[in-house]
């Protein structure tokens, strides 16, 4: 048996035996022999972005076909956060569905609560109290501000600006403190009930919100100064992902996405709910329908939401927050424990739930992301036959391939950010 010896090359690459670095002359290529260019032209590349990627704002997965750096095709894959809320809703009483609505668009939970409560009230034919109406307007507009602040912060990070992110999240934190004061929760608020609210606002809330509305415009002005005329921001956003008005309507876009394309449609103005027709505010409309206009629209909507908040605080009437119907609203605990009749109502509501008449109702409200529709179909029992959420960011996202194709890969990030998706709602 012969012994086989293997010589090992132990030298460090790029270093000769004395330890001196070996220098490669610049003209190392053999003279005369033409370098063969790799034939990359026309070869397309497949890139997978997500589902775990910070620029996809959640668990969105994009499979992108690239020609060089140009996006040829985008194939979105959804469903990583699918929770079957609509199916769950069919097994729950109307009031039990409200916690589910928190978890759909979790960046504006209070507005979702309001949207569902309005649909259930339309189905049952309930007229809510004046104080409840104004409180719900406050809830909706607070949600609009925090949702737009998150959008602004995350989008500016996607496009390389870090400072506005900190400012925006600071403001969001202040609203969250107010939400916590009111509902006891920062994220999963569940603030409405069918026929009223879970709780009235606590002492100090009005002062806190007034202080916010006074100081918030300063932050908006700072963000405006840092971004609106910033050359890098303009270069990354103007002319990117533009949709015309006709395309935006054809793609069923809603909310800031639709208005940035120049369609002045706002559910608050055009199909008013909660008395929005009595508030003085402007519908913000863009012109070019690109990422920059969407930014301008959302920024200005924050100012308008702030205006509505001020007016709502001024007119906040005294009075009950719940309708005076013991079949709908749980009696106070002290009465339920001491009064036979109140206890019966309590028992019936908890065990049987509130029955809705046979019929169906669709209520669309202007959520920060777009038109949030709640479509309820009832067969006369305490649980809906069908609870359909019209998810604004799901429908807005469906235009992403149309907007992104033909742009650069880096623009895809800007366009995806401009849609303002929240995957809890897209996947439901």
């Amino acid at each position, binding site marked *: 048996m012969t012994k086989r010896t293997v010589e090992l090359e132990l030298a460090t690459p790029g270093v000769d035996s004395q330890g001196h670095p070996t220098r490669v002359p610049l003209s190392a290529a053999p003279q005369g022999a033409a370098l063969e260019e790799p034939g990359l032209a026309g070869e*397309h*590349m*497949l890139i997978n972005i997500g589902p775990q990627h910070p620029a996809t704002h959640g668990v969105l997965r994009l*499979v992108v*076909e690239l020609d060089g750096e140009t996006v040829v*095709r985008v*194939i979105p894959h*959804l*469903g990583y956060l*699918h929770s*079957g809320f*609509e*199916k*769950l809703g069919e*097994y729950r009483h109307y009031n039990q569905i409200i916690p589910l609505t928190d978890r759909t668009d979790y960046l504006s939970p209070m507005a979702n609560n309001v949207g569902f409560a309005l649909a259930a009230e*339309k*189905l049952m*034919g309930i007229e809510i109290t004046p104080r409840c109406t104004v409180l719900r307007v406050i809830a909706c507009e607070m949600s609009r501000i925090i949702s737009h602040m998150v959008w602004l912060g995350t989008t500016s990070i996607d496009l390389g600006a870090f400072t506005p992110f900190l400012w925006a999240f600071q403001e969001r934190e202040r609203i969250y403190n107010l939400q916590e004061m009111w509902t006891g929760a920062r994220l999963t608020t569940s603030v409405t009930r069918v026929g009223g609210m879970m709780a009235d606002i606590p002492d100090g809330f009005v002062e806190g919100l007034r202080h916010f509305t006074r100081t918030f415009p300063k932050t908006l002005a700072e963000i405006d100064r840092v971004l609106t005329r910033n050359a890098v921001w303009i270069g990354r956003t103007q002319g990117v992902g533009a949709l015309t008005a006709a*395309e935006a*309507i*054809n*793609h*069923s*876009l809603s909310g800031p996405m639709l208005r940035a394309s120049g*369609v002045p*449609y706002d559910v608050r103005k*055009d*199909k008013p709910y909660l008395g929005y027709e009595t508030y003085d505010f402007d519908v913000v409309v863009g012109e070019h329908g690109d990422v920059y206009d969407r930014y301008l629209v959302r920024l200005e909507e924050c100012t308008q939401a702030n205006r509505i908040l001020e007016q709502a605080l001024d007119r906040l009437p005294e009075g009950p927050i719940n309708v005076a119907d013991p079949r709908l609203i749980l009696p106070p605990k002290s009465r339920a424990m001491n009064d036979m009749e109140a206890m019966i109502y309590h028992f019936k509501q908890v065990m049987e739930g509130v029955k809705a008449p046979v*019929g*169906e*109702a*669709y209520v*669309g409200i202007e959520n920060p992301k777009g*038109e949030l*529709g709640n*479509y309820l*179909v009832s*067969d006369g029992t305490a649980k809906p*036959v*069908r609870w*359909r959420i*019209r998810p604004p960011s*799901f*429908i807005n*996202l*469906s*235009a992403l391939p*149309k907007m992104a194709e033909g742009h650069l890969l880096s623009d895809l990030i800007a366009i995806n950010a401009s849609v303002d998706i929240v995957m809890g709602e897209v*996947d*439901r």
Partner: protein
Amino acid sequence: MNPSVEALRATFGSAIGRALESCGDTIVYVRHDALLAVLAWLRDTPDQRYDYLVDVTAVEYRDRERPLEVVYNLRSLDRRVDLRLKVELDPAGDLTVDSVVPLWRGADWLERETFDMFGITFRGHPDLRRILMWDTYVEGYPLRKDFPLRGRFSRAEQVRQALAANPEAHYSMEELSIAEAYEELPPDMRERLRRGERGKVADSE
């Protein structure tokens, strides 16, 4: 009642079924073979102008006798009027309606979701795949009433299937062909993909 109902009856006659009002919303039932013509007429007729498709969804009632309904919520942005159209389908029969994607691109994902959740086929849809559930999902259509709340399979079975899924199941055939990865796959995998058996694993043991 929305005056469009009378105009529809005058134009389409027997293709328009009953119309009713619920909570202030007008609902019109349309025969399924006339759906596309009715929607195109509603969108393009000057005094109707229902140019905005709000939503496409479906409803199945707990009462097994009632047909499955496909629901179209339309809106005229100019006139600020909503109209809800419904098409009834026999759950025991063929669950097929015409796709409205040729009229509204926005219907693309909405119809895919309705297909995914109810198993309704939209004839003429350019890319009718599941959207919220994964492509290789075999348990059925989650929002149908015969689908149990917790799914058909046990948690253990679901985990087993997820672990047994093949990596190529995460890409569609279309995507694999873009990546030119298709040619490099082992022949048996290619054969299974060609037969449409994504997600299944070859008997290796």
